């Protein structure tokens, strides 16, 4: 039972100086364990515990009740720039301010960094970084629009780059053929994009998610083959170049790069505004009501999710066409590589790395992939390897890309917390946490805890020596260990308490158990009859010990 080493000892009755009824002053017995050990063992946590609490460095803004409603607002509405609420610290009772959503601050910081990035570029790499930066901004704009289609509208379209490419080729061709000025190219581009979107939205109405994905993958290939093989679009030269551009040609090459960089940055800002005003307003909210596989419920609530999806698809297609026209106005034309499978693959890698469905995910993914693809051009094909590994790693380990890490981590931590809690909580008399909250009499909980501890201690005391002692003298003065055990037994509630029944006819004894209810007769526990009352006492004692050890 326990590793407690018993030693033979003598128990001296402390009352023996006044004389005892039976003249027993000294009892041969064994040492009993220290109750303090049981107490400590019950108080200790079995699982490893850690220090908890708020981070010391967690930034808390002080507040005053008067200041709480002094906020920045978007003029002329009453909408807040930052969602703030005031609260009182439960420990210090100080007024504090909490920002509910810190993302606007992060967005501002990141966009500022992109805006001043040309100043920060290391000398010698400015040209590479500026051209990579312009490409990053344009691709980020495309991916933000793609996020609207894939995330908000849940149409898994892979034809995004096809729309951009078709619009770019058509506007280049128009510009070369009819001499259109650069400022008209994005406008024509959006018209072409809208037309293209209208054409490919038809199958989207009928097809399910992945059927549509595969179909659009094919459409992309179709565009590639069509434009590569047709003579009008410069099949021999690897692309079509010669459109009008907005970058003045009398500037120095470096100034031209700067000009292009900021033009592309403006495009990115425009794409982000589009995302904000589609995803965050009515259309986006309608579609948040109808996520994939729960469309039927949304429809039953009166949400017309189909038309909302098609509207978003058309808006996005026009925007993508605009980007195509802008691309042409920036680079004077476009190469066939925009239709290639690798472009789709890299685009998908960009979306996946950041997390599908979030604008910040699209931008971060684009940043990472563009950096690997355009800046680390010196390491050769190894960079595609890196992109592939990154993509595979993100898909295998993250549910929702980089920006889903926090949620995933919290879910994992909650799971682990539950596991640890279940290790700590014990059964056996003590209340379960769920039960404890529902008990009104909290004394009951403390009694159960004490009772469990006492039983643990008594279990350690039981040994053959005290059983033998009881068998020899069931009544009268006993050693400390036996006496404590007997006190516990005697204090048991009346329900199912063992007792002896004296059969007068035969002068024998039987063990019975009380019902605990007035008027309900006791039950007979066993048929065995005992001749001597001391044997019967000992039999009851053995039963009680048995029950104690079982509990």
């Amino acid at each position, binding site marked *: 039972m326990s590793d407690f080493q018993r030693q033979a000892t003598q128990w001296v009755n402390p009352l023996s100086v006044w004389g005892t009824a039976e003249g027993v002053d000294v009892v041969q017995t064994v040492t009993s364990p220290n109750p303090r050990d049981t107490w400590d063992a019950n108080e200790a946590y079995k699982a490893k515990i850690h220090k908890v609490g708020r981070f010391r460095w967690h930034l808390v803004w002080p507040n005053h009740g008067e200041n709480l409603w002094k906020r920045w607002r978007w003029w002329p509405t009453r909408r807040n720039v930052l969602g703030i609420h005031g609260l009182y610290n439960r420990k210090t009772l100080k007024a504090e301010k909490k920002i509910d959503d810190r993302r606007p601050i992060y967005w501002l910081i990141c966009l500022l960094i992109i805006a001043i990035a040309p100043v920060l570029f290391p000398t010698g790499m400015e040209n590479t970084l500026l051209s990579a930066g312009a490409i990053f901004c344009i691709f980020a704009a495309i991916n933000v629009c793609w996020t609207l289609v894939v995330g908000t509208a849940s149409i898994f379209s892979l034809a995004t780059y096809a729309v951009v490419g078709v619009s770019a080729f058509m506007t280049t061709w128009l510009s070369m053929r009819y001499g259109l000025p650069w400022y008209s190219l994005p406008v024509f581009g959006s018209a072409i994009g809208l037309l293209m979107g209208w054409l490919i939205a038809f199958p989207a109405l009928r*097809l399910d998610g992945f059927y549509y994905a*595969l179909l659009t993958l094919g459409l992309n*290939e179709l565009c590639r083959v069509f434009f590569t093989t047709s003579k009008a679009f410069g099949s021999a030269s690897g692309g079509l170049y010669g459109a009008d551009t907005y970058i003045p040609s009398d500037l120095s090459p470096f100034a031209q790069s700067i000009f292009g960089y900021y033009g592309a940055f403006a495009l990115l800002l425009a794409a982000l505004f589009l995302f904000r005003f589609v995803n965050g307003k009515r259309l986006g909210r309608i579609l948040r009501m109808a996520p994939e596989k729960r469309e039927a419920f949304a429809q039953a609530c009166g949400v017309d999710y189909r038309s909302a999806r098609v509207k978003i698809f058309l808006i996005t297609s026009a925007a993508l066409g605009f980007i195509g026209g802008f691309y042409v106005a920036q680079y004077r034309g476009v190469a066939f590589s925009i239709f290639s499978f690798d472009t789709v*693959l890299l685009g998908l890698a960009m979306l996946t790395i950041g997390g599908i469905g979030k604008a910040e995910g699209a931008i971060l993914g684009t940043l990472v992939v563009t950096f690997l693809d355009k800046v680390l051009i010196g390491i050769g094909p190894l960079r595609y390897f890196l992109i592939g590994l990154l*993509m*595979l790693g993100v898909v*295998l380990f993250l549910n929702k890309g980089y920006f889903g890490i926090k949620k995933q981590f919290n879910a994992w931590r909650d799971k682990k917390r539950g596991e640890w809690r279940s290790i700590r909580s014990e059964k056996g008399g003590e209340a379960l946490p769920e039960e404890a909250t529902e008990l009104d009499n909290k004394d009951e909980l403390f009694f159960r805890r004490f009772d469990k501890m006492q039983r643990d201690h008594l279990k350690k005391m039981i040994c053959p020596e005290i059983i033998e002692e009881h068998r020899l003298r069931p009544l009268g003065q006993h050693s400390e260990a036996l006496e404590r055990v007997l006190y516990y037994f005697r204090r048991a509630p009346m329900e199912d308490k063992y007792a002896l029944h004296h059969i007068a006819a035969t002068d024998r004894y039987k063990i019975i158990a009380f019902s605990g209810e007035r008027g309900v007769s006791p039950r007979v526990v066993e048929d065995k009859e005992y001749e001597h009352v001391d044997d019967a006492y000992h039999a009851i004692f053995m039963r009680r010990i048995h029950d104690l050890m079982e509990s």
Partner: protein
Amino acid sequence: MDITFVLLNAVVIASIYGLIAVAVSITWSSLGLINLGYGFVFSFAGYGAWLMSTYVTKMPAPVMAAGILAGAICGVIICLVVFIPLHDKSNFTTRGMVGTLAISLLGSQALLMNFGPRAKALPEFFGTGSVNLGGIVLTADRIGIVVCATVMLCFVVFWMKGSRRGLEIRAMMMNPHAASIVGIGIRKTGIYVMAITGGMAGLAAVLLSQTYYVAPFSGLTPLIKGVSIALCGGLGSVQGAIIAAVILGFTEAATSSLLGGQYVLITQFLVIICILIFRPRGISGLLDKAREQ
């Protein structure tokens, strides 16, 4: 320009792309995985066959076996890396698809690094003879391609109908949850499925390299054609894929002989879109709600 020539071409094209389409179809319906890594499986198997023919023997049977084996190994690799870790995670369909794409990116780059960008040619297996059947000249390689593809397809269909593993795969196609409840291991079945479909893609690679070459990125066109055929026939249906392969093969052959090669994809996609608008689940797509996880 006679109709028999067009039909003949249609059958040859259909038999090769049909193999990949059936592979895509089986993988989707039994595992729920949209495997866009077949392009890589295709090139990998092509290089496997090429290594066999360069370093060991040029005999047709071992080279073809090497191609099939390499394809099966590559399929199992995809299964181990993407399917087994992901199949019980949230968002499996999207993540599985992106995962197979990532494998195909990694694999193609690895092939490019190892073997260089130059295309390799496989020996001609079926000789250069020809048979004249009532005015129609059948060259040996065409007969060989059609016969091999048909034999492989029949083998797969009979194996799926007759063997215990095939029964497991068909049970997974019907209802993956019920299959796992009655004791069919999803992971084990996944490995069988990917091995057999990888073998089919491998054979397609060997057969197609009779006409084209083996190159790191040569798997893309067959993949897209296979996927379109599987889509048109209905993901999850073998007979649908075969019907669609015949229809699209015929479209391709007719377009290239009547209009010209660059219009092939356009007419094919028009046909596919027409079919899908009338039957959104493909020609014989039976899985309406069954594969909803």
